[in-house]
């Protein structure tokens, strides 16, 4: 297919994914807003008011906002692609794409774009809710945007791989429950890893979410537990690695073709 026809195909998948997010907005947009509002009230206001300031003179509420926004972004980009692509597999609607002349990278990019779009919209909505509880000034807008983009992309790709392997709906719930949520909670959303004693600090540094949360926190507040260069290098490595895995799965037709 030529570049223009590939772009039409890419636009078609992305548009369809975004229309799906809008069509089921009560499942895709409202729940993270409700959950994060509760986090802000309980952890930020009630508990945070007793903690006082944390690194860099920021209130606890200000400190956890970037982490919670990033948590919403990665959870939603992951959930979007895993449920949408697995749903297409389950209903066999994925065959519409598999029998078409679309290259695999177009299918992958289309689904990832839709998932990133949901991540960004949810992130923005959660950030707006946060402004009801605290004041924030984005220190490095470009770093903020890039960290959000890369974080959403990484978990969109991970969700895609999960959906390709999944054989039943339970399989797409296992990874968020047993891997994603623990890694998020231990990824410096609610605390600075500098507060941890060794070896927990060293162990925390093998958690990829730590780099995403801290890159985003650096963008918003200007503070980070990890070097910003290292954070971006880790995120880019995950994007490249997961993209290659996803494209390999599509090429081999694992879980998709007989």
């Amino acid at each position, binding site marked *: 297919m030529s570049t223009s026809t590939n772009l039409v195909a890419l636009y078609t998948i992305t548009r369809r994914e975004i229309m799906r997010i809008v069509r089921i907005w009560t499942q895709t947009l409202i729940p993270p807003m409700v959950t994060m509002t509760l986090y802000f009230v309980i952890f930020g206001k009630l508990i945070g008011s007793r903690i006082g300031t944390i690194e860099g003179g920021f209130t606890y509420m200000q400190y956890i906002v970037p982490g919670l926004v990033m948590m919403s972004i990665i959870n939603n980009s992951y959930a979007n692609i895993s449920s949408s692509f697995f749903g297409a597999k389950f209903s066999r609607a994925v065959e519409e794409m598999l029998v078409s*002349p679309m290259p695999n990278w177009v299918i992958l990019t289309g689904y990832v774009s839709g998932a990133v779009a949901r991540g960004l919209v949810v992130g923005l909505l959660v950030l707006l809710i946060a402004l009801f509880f605290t004041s924030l000034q984005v220190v490095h807008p470009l770093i903020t945007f890039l960290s959000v983009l890369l974080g959403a992309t990484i978990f969109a790709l991970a969700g895609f791989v999960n959906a390709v392997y999944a054989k039943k709906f339970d399989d797409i719930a296992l990874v968020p429950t047993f891997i994603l949520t623990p890694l998020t909670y231990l990824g410096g959303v609610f605390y600075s890893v500098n507060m941890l004693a060794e070896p927990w600090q060293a162990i925390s540094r093998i958690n990829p979410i730590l780099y995403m949360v801290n890159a985003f926190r650096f963008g918003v507040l200007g503070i980070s537990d990890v070097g910003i260069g290292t954070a971006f290098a880790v995120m880019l490595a995950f994007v490249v690695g997961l993209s290659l895995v996803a494209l390999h799965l599509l090429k081999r037709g694992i879980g998709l*073709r007989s």
Partner: protein
Amino acid sequence: MSPTPALVVDNLRKTYRNGVEALKGISLTVQPGDFFALLGPNGAGKSTLIGILSSLVNSTGGDAEVFGVSVNKHRNEAMRLIGLVPQEINFNQFEKPFDICVNEAGFYGIPRRIAAQRAEKYLKELRLWDKAHHQARELSGGMKRRLMIARAMMNEPKLLILDEPTAGVDIEIRRSMWQFVSGINAAGTTVILTTHYLEEAEQLCRNIAIIDHGTIIQNSSMKRLLATLDVETFVLDLAQTPTELPTVAGISLRRIDDHTLEAEMARKQDLNTLFAALTDNGITVNSMRTKTNRLEELFVRLVENGRLEPIQQEKTA
């Protein structure tokens, strides 16, 4: 120079991971513009073959070319030439028929404006336009099958593959579907059809391949295949109960019930002999029909009894 065949299947093989050998090196050719029947019992390998042609199944040997384009080597170009109507419903039931068609066109790189025009055209031709903006799950079974035909037409394929498109569809809708597909074929699209309704295949298709246990057991023109049928069975409805059945040389008469006889006879034998014998015995025949359609009779013999010798494939335009 002869035109490039619509489809050339060359020694195609498929062995699934569980060891089932679904295709054992089959070869066949479909000429452009043909209406081709691919028949066989359940599990014969038809859907595997269609799956390989549409790239949903990876072959384990051989190749197929669609209008000269190799499915193995140039998958994307080959897929651009094919439209597939699968056996199972495979669209998102929460989407609207119009969106399903427009999105399908988008997957082929067709701009949205042109896609919208085509969607309207084909949904109207298949009498689905009034449902175009309802959720697909609200459609009846027959409507869903017509929607899959409309969807397959969005890239205006040169080769349309229909895998049991009329399964479970009532006769009226089935006829309207065939009217549409015949029109598409008359306009130049090559059509490959699998069906269990053999009268459909007999009426619509010019050439035929019968596949069984992963091999092609018959591949010829429909006319030549039907001509090999040497025996026909007629069902006679009688005015009154016959006291005694006549004996007619070369004809086997069997009483089904008090008012029905079955007569099995060679095709070359004339019916006058039979009617003369019945008249001599005072038996009045009210009506007569063939017991099964001819293709069905042949199909059963080929698949179950292996009573016919394969016919060499002939060149067809």
